[in-house]
């Protein structure tokens, strides 16, 4: 019997399809109150005073909370640099300053949502405007407004990579290419806007039922802000309607806990779509200046890059995201000489943070853009130029240390080319086949290539571990197996996969497995569902726990309980001067080939076909793996072509799905061919790697390459909207000129 590699039907499928599964907005208590948040009306200002008297006098209003009501007025995933509520009177230094429009100023709790909204509009806030800065390059200049104490020039972090000898490196290069790449904001646009309910549970704990990605981290941040011991705070995740990194940081968690704690009554909130888009973080727009050089045979000799990411008003996970970009900007290649500077910079824009790929897509856009330009300049096939340079187990990564064993980017690239139908292999050489052009002269087709790697798990020395518990119940025979695990089911199928792995590890059919999940009162810390880590981490934790439980079962313990904490090999942070580090313990590898049709008169880029080859180590549930590949491709298509978040002086101008366009059935590719490769990871459970982010990474650079193939023009700024494409083509003499 093996459940590993079987596409079992998701355990949450029936409930979700029939509408029975409760999401946070579906949960109600009889005596519940409703909350509305007053957000900042300025991008950078000191709050002089807040007058809540009219709001408090409004019939049906129960309470209005401001900064003075927060026991410890700060929070933040990597550093507590953001006030829970901005305003005067709190003991937190700088908490009276709003630094972006998403800062919370006051909470109104009332008998109904309508009353709370009406009363919110009666709150009078007196602001004293401060000079603001919206461009990270401007923010880094002397004399720019400084957002946070101890952060001169607003530089939240600066990473360096110094490898080899740049003095002589460029002389070895026969070809040097340069480019300036600009990526854009992206909104997570998960199906379920932020919602939750805070209450006091039967054991007196401040409890928040909410959608998130890491129960125990939410619990910690709530406990910190409320100055409560951890065990007096409880976090429960019901079904979560998508996350993609957008729920890694706090949204409604702390404010719900605060209101429930103060009022001892259930308090509920549901954000509108507009609130969701305006008030949670975004993918980082990153600018990258890059220069790469290679010998005639394609061998890379040197690269340099300057990477500047807009962090917005608060840190969120910017230091980690830009840490990733700092490495990913060199691609999965062996490069003997490198010089990289990477900055995350505070501005008065919306904060930026985690989003599927976590800094990798931006790095890949530049790295793959450079490789495709080198191929073009050298007259080499893009697949061949990769084959000369790709990392292997024996080569040193850009951080000066060997990769974790199991580097498979070489075979992944070759498989992708072979399976695509656009290349043929002759002897040991890959050759591009010509692509058929449409009869309509306005339409041009092109094919593009890109590849990437994505770390699995937390990086750069961050504490990394995952707990799992297996209980075997029964007497002579096993009646049931209970798994306790905190992994958040955000729609990715992790609960199904955890139950598959538990059944396999104990050796029982899946029907015997029960899951108790995502409640800090009943499960240990499993870490976040992020960094493509949960299958890898949970699988190893469950295997460990099952081994103990099975032994205890044999020893006739009833129930036989195994509790296990999996700890992967240690990672290390960047050396501040050279960037040398052992950044990660595992990777997934991916390559993509796309065919696009460019309408050179209108600028429309139609993504026709995508071939995505992914080394997932072991596909525990192949149907779920395919779903992740197709989902990542479509989300990356939006990022590359359609999604155009407009921020003007820190304010988002299109916070609606009618104006912030994401792909629909009208837009998605006619075919996404998922090539699932299973080259086992040496330390992955049953060989599995993480895979949910990596298919996102190569798509945008592959599309840019295909546009170049179709038109001869490189476009290095995202998104590739029709007006941008048509303008760029016309500037380069393609398409019909107009005044």
């Amino acid at each position, binding site marked *: 019997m093996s459940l590993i590699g079987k596409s079992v039907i998701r355990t949450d499928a029936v409930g979700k399809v029939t509408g029975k599964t409760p999401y946070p907005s579906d949960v109600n208590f009889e005596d519940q109150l409703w909350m509305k948040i007053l957000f900042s009306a300025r991008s950078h200002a000191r709050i002089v005073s807040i007058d809540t008297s009219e709001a408090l006098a409004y019939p049906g209003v129960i309470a209005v909370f401001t900064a003075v009501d927060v026991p410890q007025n700060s929070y933040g995933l990597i550093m507590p640099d953001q006030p829970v509520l901005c305003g005067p009177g709190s003991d937190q230094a700088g908490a009276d300053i709003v630094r972006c429009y998403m800062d919370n100023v006051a909470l109104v709790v009332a008998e109904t949502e309508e009353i709370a909204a009406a009363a919110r509009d009666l709150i009078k806030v007196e602001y004293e405007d401060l000079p603001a800065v919206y461009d990270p390059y401007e923010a880094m200049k002397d004399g720019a407004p400084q957002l946070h104490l101890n952060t001169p020039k607003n530089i939240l972090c600066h990473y360096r990579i110094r490898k080899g000898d740049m003095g002589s490196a460029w002389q070895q290069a026969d070809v040097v290419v340069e480019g300036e790449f600009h990526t854009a904001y992206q909104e997570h646009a998960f199906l379920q806007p932020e919602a939750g309910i805070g209450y006091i549970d039967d054991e007196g704990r401040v409890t928040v039922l909410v959608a998130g990605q890491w129960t125990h981290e939410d619990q910690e941040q709530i406990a910190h802000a409320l100055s409560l011991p951890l065990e007096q705070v409880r976090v429960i995740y019901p079904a979560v309607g998508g996350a993609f990194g957008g729920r890694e940081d706090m949204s409604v968690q702390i404010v719900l806990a605060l209101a429930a704690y103060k009022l001892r009554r259930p308090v509920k909130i549901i954000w509108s779509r507009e609130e969701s888009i305006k008030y949670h973080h975004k993918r980082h727009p990153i600018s990258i200046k890059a220069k790469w050089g290679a010998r005639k045979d394609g061998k890379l000799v040197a690269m340099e890059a300057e990477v500047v990411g807009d962090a917005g008003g608060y840190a969120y996970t910017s230091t980690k995201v830009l840490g990733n970009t700092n490495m990913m900007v060199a691609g999965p290649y062996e490069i003997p000489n490198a010089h990289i500077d990477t900055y995350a910079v505070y501005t008065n824009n919306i904060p930026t943070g985690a989003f599927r790929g976590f800094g990798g897509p931006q790095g890949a856009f530049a790295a793959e853009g450079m490789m495709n330009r080198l191929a073009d300049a050298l007259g080499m096939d893009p697949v061949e130029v990769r084959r000369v340079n790709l990392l292997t187990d024996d080569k040193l990564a850009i951080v000066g240390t060997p990769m974790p064993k199991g580097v498979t980017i070489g075979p992944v690239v070759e498989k992708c080319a072979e399976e695509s139908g656009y290349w043929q292999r002759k002897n040991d050489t890959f050759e591009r086949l010509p692509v058929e052009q449409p009869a309509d002269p306005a339409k041009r087709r092109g094919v593009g290539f890109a590849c990437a790697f994505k770390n699995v798990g937390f990086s750069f020395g961050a504490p990394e571990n995952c707990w799992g518990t297996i209980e075997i119940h029964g007497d002579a025979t096993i009646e049931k197996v209970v798994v306790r695990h905190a992994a958040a089911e955000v729609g990715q199928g992790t609960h199904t996969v955890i139950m598959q792995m538990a059944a396999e590890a104990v050796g029982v059919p899946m029907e015997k497995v029960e899951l108790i999940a995502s409640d800090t009162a009943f499960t240990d810390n499993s870490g976040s569902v992020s960094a493509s880590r949960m299958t890898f981490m949970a699988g190893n934790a469950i295997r460990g726990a099952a081994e103990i439980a099975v032994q205890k079962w044999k020893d006739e313990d009833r129930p036989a309980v195994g509790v296990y904490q999996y700890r992967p090999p240690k990672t290390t942070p960047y050396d501040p001067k050279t960037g040398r580090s052992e950044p990660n313990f595992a990777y997934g590898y991916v390559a993509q080939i796309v065919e696009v049709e460019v309408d050179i*008169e*209108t*600028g429309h880029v139609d993504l026709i076909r995508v071939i995505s080859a992914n080394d997932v180590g072991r596909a525990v549930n192949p149907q779920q793996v395919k779903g992740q590949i197709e989902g990542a491709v479509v989300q990356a298509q939006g990022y590359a072509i*359609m999604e*155009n978040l*407009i921020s003007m002086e820190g304010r988002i*101008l*299109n916070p609606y*799905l*009618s*104006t912030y*366009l994401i792909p*629909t059935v*009208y*837009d998605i590719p006619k075919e996404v061919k998922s090539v699932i490769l299973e080259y086992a990871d040496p330390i992955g459970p049953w060989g599995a790697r993480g895979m949910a982010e990596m298919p996102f990474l190569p798509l945008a650079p592959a599309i840019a390459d295909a546009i170049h193939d179709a038109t001869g023009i490189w476009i290095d700024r995202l998104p590739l909207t*029709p*007006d941008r494409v*048509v*303008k760029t083509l016309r500037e380069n003499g393609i398409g*019909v000129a*107009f*005044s």
Partner: protein
Amino acid sequence: MYPAKFDYYRANSVEEAVKLLAENSDAKLLAGGHSLIPAMKLRLTQPALLIDIGKIDSLKNIKANGSLEIGALATHARVAASADVKKWFPALANAASLIGDQQVRNFGTIGGNIAHADPASDPPTVLIAAGATIHVRGASGTRAIAAEDFFVDLFTTALEPGEVVTKIEIPNLSGRKSAYAKMSHPASRYAIVGVCAVLSMEGDTCKEARLVVGGAVAHATRLSEAEAVLKGKKLDAAALKAAADAAIAQVGDDAMGDITAPADYRRAMVGQYLQRAIQSALG
């Protein structure tokens, strides 16, 4: 949002609707509701009374007899599927088929659509190109308005208070070649730019061209400069390019822009879609 409170009355005849409109200054007609209800939910309009004309069956007919007559309550889906419309004026059937999605087309009506006069709507563009006539009835009787004079500005028509659109009449276009070319907004499917061409040809030569643009400007408008350029010309690439340039020049600063399609882009696309409409009409 929920709409503000309103009263509801169902009219069983055009006469009754006209009477109710005359008696209630703050009333609106409800047909398919696909423009009115969203506007009410956004509180952009807050009528005290809705007069539902949706059950007046006499306004739903489509018939071809000397001219093509389309009742004001014909849904977009029926217009798109009608054999008479496809035969008489295929550009209109095509335009109707491109509106919104199937659910919108099943409810939205051609009369409601033109009375609402959304600048990004498709029917006004093709109806002006066809030289259609809009028949209306008010308290003082009936009158006929040329489609070209009907659309006055953003969401503004030549309808007087109390008038009801009853039918749309399209003249005999036999021998003309026509087509509608449209760039759809990816979310709403409204026209970012829509151009309709109705051509009278003598061999390769254009005797007369009626060219109308919608979406890019405040209301559907004849591209008279481009029409003049093509009159008496062989419709080769150079002539089309000259017409496109003339159209772009005529649209000029009137081009509207938004986040999805800035004004300069829309203006340029008027030229492209003009050429596409003509090419499509010529087959």
